[in-house]
């Protein structure tokens, strides 16, 4: 019962905040709605029994990516913010207009139809399974998978992150003239 409730709550939070991301005019608000959506997804992970992934989601996205995005908005805000601040009700110049939204919705619709087609064909070949009754702790299993089956990906991800760190630091570093 609680699972269903949690699922509903998370689903509403996820989808509602995602839609808000799309329609909000203020980029800062968009970021915050993204935060809500990501927390909702963490809730969905929790309903799937994926506790570690759920917490990772919160840890990386809420603690990291969203803050990074907020920083980036602040660092790039100047001009666009100034114009937005003077015209609180009007559309911010960079947030799109009815044409771009029209194109976006059209493409979204195309994708939706395509996906419904795909989903219907996939669903035909899947027998619906019910919830398994036992779902043991994921952490130790994930740990074993990381050091056994996926050890290469595990090690390489550290290299990837190092590369991202070095690359982004080089790009973002204040330059000497």
């Amino acid at each position: 019962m609680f699972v269903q409730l949690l699922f509903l709550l998370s689903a509403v939070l996820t989808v509602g905040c995602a839609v808000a991301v799309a329609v909000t005019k203020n980029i800062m608000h968009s970021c915050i709605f993204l935060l809500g959506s990501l927390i909702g997804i963490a809730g969905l992970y929790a309903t799937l029994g994926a506790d570690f992934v759920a917490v990772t989601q919160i840890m990386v996205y809420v603690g990291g990516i969203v803050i990074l995005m907020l920083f980036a908005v602040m660092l790039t805000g100047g001009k666009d913010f100034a114009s937005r601040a003077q015209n609180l009700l009007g559309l911010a110049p960079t947030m799109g207009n009815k044409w771009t939204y029209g194109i976006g919705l059209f493409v979204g619709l195309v994708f939706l139809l395509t996906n419904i087609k795909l989903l219907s064909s996939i669903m035909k070949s899947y027998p619906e399974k019910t919830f398994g009754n036992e779902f043991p702790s994921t952490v130790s299993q994930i740990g074993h998978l990381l050091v056994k089956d996926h050890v290469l990906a595990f090690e390489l991800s550290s290299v990837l992150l190092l590369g991202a760190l070095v690359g982004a630091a080089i790009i973002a570093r204040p330059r000497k003239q």
Partner: protein
Amino acid sequence: MTPAQFDGLMPIVILMGIAVLLFTGGHFVSVLLAPKKPSLLKETPYECGEQPVGSAWSAFNVRFYVVGLIFIIFDVESVLMFPVASIFKELNEAGEGAYALIIFLSFISVLIEGIAYCWKKGDLDWVKSFQVSAKNNK
């Protein structure tokens, strides 16, 4: 987890709900009780009595971003280390301690490499990069 075991997640939701309720409730009470006498001076951001010039929402120093950047990389690396650390003891007891140690240390060594790089390049020096960027802004 059986469906019933998901109930263990209940306190998290309840506590979050309490937080939201407490906030809105407290806010409501304050709306009821608190006086409401707005004036222009009150609604002006406090800048030590001076008239604020322009908005505070302007471009900031890139320094903050670099800190955030280093943070997120370390954050993600520590996230990946958590499950391995959790089973480290277990692996050691199963006789695979050396293997686990090698895996773990090689992962950490890349982390150390990252911090060494940033250290060497001065990304960890707040003042130095302020000076550099001050020159940059001229």
